[in-house]
C-alpha cells in the first residue's frame, strides 16, 4: 500500500504528461487527419511499417527476458549484425536480397546459440545480473567488430528489384518495399502468434515464462528451451535488421538506438508477453512516426512521455503480469 500522497503525485504527473502529449501530438494529429487525410494515412502506413520492424526486435527481447530473466543488452547488436551481414551477402552474391533475408538471421541465430551455450549458461547459478553484464560486454565487442569490418560510414542495404517502384494506395503512390514489409511483418506476427498460442512448443515457452522451475519439474529440458528462445530472438532481431536495412539505413550506433526503442516498447507493453510487445510496438511505432512528422524537435521526448504515462498509471505495462 502506497501512501495516498504518492498516488496523488503520480496521478498529477500523469495528467500533466497526458496534457502535454495531447497538446503536442493528438491535437495536431486530428487537425492533420481532417485537413489532409491522405497524408495522415500515408504516415499511418509508415508508422505501421516501423511498428512491425520494432515488434520483431521487441518480441524476441521480451521473450528472452520473460523466460530467462535476462535483459539482453546485446539485442540491438543482433539487429545491427543482421543488417550488416546481409549487406555483405548482398554484395557477394550479386545482389541476391532473398538469400540475405534467409541467411543473415540463420547465421545470427547460430551466433546466439554459441553465446547462450558458451557464456550465459556457465553463469546461470550466479544470478541474472552477471548474465546482463555479459550481454553488455558483448554489445561492446559486437559494435566494435562492426566498426572494424564495415567502417563507420552510413550505408543502405540494396534490395530486390522485384520490390522497387511503387504501388498505388488510395490513388497515391506508396513505396512497394514498405508495403511488402508491412505485409511480411503482419504475416510473421500472425505466424508467431500461432506458434506461441496454438502449438505444444509455444505452450512450453509460455509456461516457461510463467514458471521455469515448474516446467523443468514436469520433465521438460528447460535449458534447451532457453537456448532455443535465445537463438530465435537473435534470429528475429537479425531478420528485422535485414528488412529495416533499406528503409532506416545502417550506421554504427544503430544497435543502441534500436535497443532503447525495444526497451520502451516492452516497458509500455509489459515484459514477457506476445500481446504486450505487439500492441506496445504499434503504440510506440505510430506515436514516434507521427511525432517525427508533427514535432520533429521533440519526437524522442514525446515517445518517452508516452512511456512515462503508462509507467505512472500501470507500472507493469499495458499487458504486464504483476511483478512477483
Amino acid at each position, binding site marked *: 500500500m502506497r501512501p495516498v500522497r504518492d498516488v496523488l503525485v503520480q496521478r498529477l504527473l500523469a495528467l500533466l504528461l497526458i496534457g502535454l502529449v495531447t497538446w503536442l501530438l493528438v491535437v495536431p494529429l486530428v487537425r492533420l487527419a481532417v485537413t489532409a487525410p491522405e497524408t495522415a494515412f500515408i504516415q499511418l502506413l509508415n508508422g505501421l511499417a516501423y511498428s512491425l520492424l520494432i515488434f520483431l526486435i521487441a518480441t524476441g527481447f521480451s521473450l528472452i527476458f520473460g523466460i530467462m530473466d535476462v535483459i539482453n543488452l546485446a539485442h540491438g547488436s543482433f539487429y545491427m549484425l543482421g543488417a550488416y551481414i546481409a549487406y555483405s551477402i548482398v554484395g557477394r552474391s550479386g545482389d541476391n536480397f532473398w538469400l540475405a533475408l534467409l541467411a543473415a538471421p540463420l547465421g545470427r541465430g547460430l551466433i546466439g546459440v554459441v553465446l547462450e551455450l558458451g557464456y550465459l549458461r556457465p*553463469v546461470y547459478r550466479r544470478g541474472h545480473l552477471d548474465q546482463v553484464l*555479459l550481454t553488455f560486454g558483448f554489445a561492446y565487442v559486437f559494435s*566494435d567488430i562492426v566498426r572494424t569490418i564495415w567502417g563507420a560510414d552510413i550505408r543502405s542495404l540494396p534490395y530486390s528489384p522485384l520490390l522497387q517502384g511503387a504501388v498505388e494506395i488510395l490513388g497515391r503512390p506508396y513505396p512497394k518495399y514498405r508495403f511488402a514489409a508491412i505485409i511480411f511483418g503482419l504475416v510473421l506476427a500472425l505466424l508467431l502468434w500461432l506458434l506461441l498460442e496454438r502449438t505444444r512448443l509455444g505452450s512450453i515457452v509460455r509456461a516457461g515464462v510463467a514458471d521455469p522451475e515448474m516446467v523443468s519439474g514436469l520433465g521438460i529440458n528447460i535449458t534447451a528451451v532457453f537456448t532455443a528462445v535465445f537463438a530465435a530472438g537473435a534470429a528475429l532481431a537479425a531478420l528485422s535488421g535485414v528488412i529495416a536495412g533499406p528503409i532506416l539505413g545502417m550506421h554504427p550506433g544503430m544497435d*543502441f538506438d534500436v535497443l532503447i526503442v525495444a*526497451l520502451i516498447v516492452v516497458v509500455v507493453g509489459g515484459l514477457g508477453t506476445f500481446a504486450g510487445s505487439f500492441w506496445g510496438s504499434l503504440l510506440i511505432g505510430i506515436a514516434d512516426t507521427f511525432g517525427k512528422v508533427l514535432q520533429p524537435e521533440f519526437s524522442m521526448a514525446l515517445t518517452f512521455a508516452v512511456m*512515462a504515462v503508462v*509507467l505512472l498509471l500501470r507500472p507493469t505495462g499495458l499487458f504486464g503480469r504483476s511483478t512477483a
Partner: protein
Amino acid sequence: MEAIRVEAGARLAKARLSLARRWALPAGVLVLLIGCPLVLPQYLLSLLTEVLIFGIFAMSLDLLLGYTGLVSFGHAAFFGVGAYTAGLAAIRLSPHLGVTLPLALGAAALAALVIGYLCIRTAGIYFLMLTLAFAQVLYAVAFKWTPVTGGSNGLSGIPRPTLGLVPGGGELADPIRFYFFVLLIFLLVYYGLRRVVNSPFGHTLVGIRENEGRMRAIGYDVARYKLAAFVLAGVLAGLAGALNTYLNVFASPAQLNWTTSGQVLVMVIIGGAGTLIGPVLGAALVLLLQNLVSTHTDRWPMIMGAVFIIFVLLARFGIVGIWDRLVARLARRA
C-alpha cells in the same frame, strides 16, 4: 601462565602489526598521490587527474550498484548534467567556482530527484531499463539542442575556473595546482562516502540490497532511502562531471551517452563492487589501459568489452576480490 603471557604478547604484537599494516597502505598511497606531481610528466599528471575524477564518478555509481543493489544503467546522465551545467554557467554567468560548482551540483541533484522519483518505484530490471532510457533522453537533448549545448560539436569556449583570489583568476590554470584541487575533493568525497557507508544510513542501504521485503516489513521507508541514495549518487556524479569540464574546458554529448554509463559500470565491476576503493582501482585500470591501447590500435572498445567479459566470468569481485583471495592464500601459507 608463561604460555598465556607469551600468547598475549604475540597477540598484542599481531594487533600492532595489523594496525600498522592497516595504516601503512593508505598512508603510503597518500604520500604517493601527493608526491606524484614532482616526478610525473604533465601528460601522466593529467591522466592521474582524470583517474581521480572518474574514481569519484565510479564510487558514486557503486553507492547504488554495490551498496543499495540498484543497477543503474544511466549514471552518465548526472555526469553529463554536471558537466554541461558547469560549462554553461562558466560561459554565461561567471567562471567563478562559487557560481559554477553549486549550480552544477544543484542541477545534478534536481535531475537525480526527478529521474529517481520515476525510477525507484520500479524493481530490478525495469529500473535498469528506465535509467538507461532517461539517460538517452538527456543525451538526445544535448545532441540536438544545438543553440544551447553546441549539439554534436560539444560545448566549447568554456573559460577556466577561478577562485576569485587573485585578479587574473588563474589559480587553477596550472595543472599541478588543479591536480591538488581535484585530489583534495577526491579525498573529501572518499572520506565522506566512507562515513556514509559505515553510518546507520549506509547499513540500511545494504539491508535493502540484501532483503528489501524484510526492510520494508521492519518499517523502513525503502523508497525514501533508495531515492536518497540515488540523489546522493547523482550529485557526486555531477561533481565528477563538473571537475571533468574544468579539466578539459569542454563538454561533449558523448559524456551523456550509454557508452559513458557503460564505461563507469565496467570500472565498478572490474574494480570490485561493494567497496569504495574498488571502483577507484577500476577507474585507474580502465583509463590506463585505454591510454596504453589507444596508442597502438583503435580497437579499444573491443578490448575493453573482452576484459570486462573475462572479469565477469572469472573474477566477479574484481581487483579487490583477487587481492582478497591472494591475501587469504598467503595467510594460510604463513
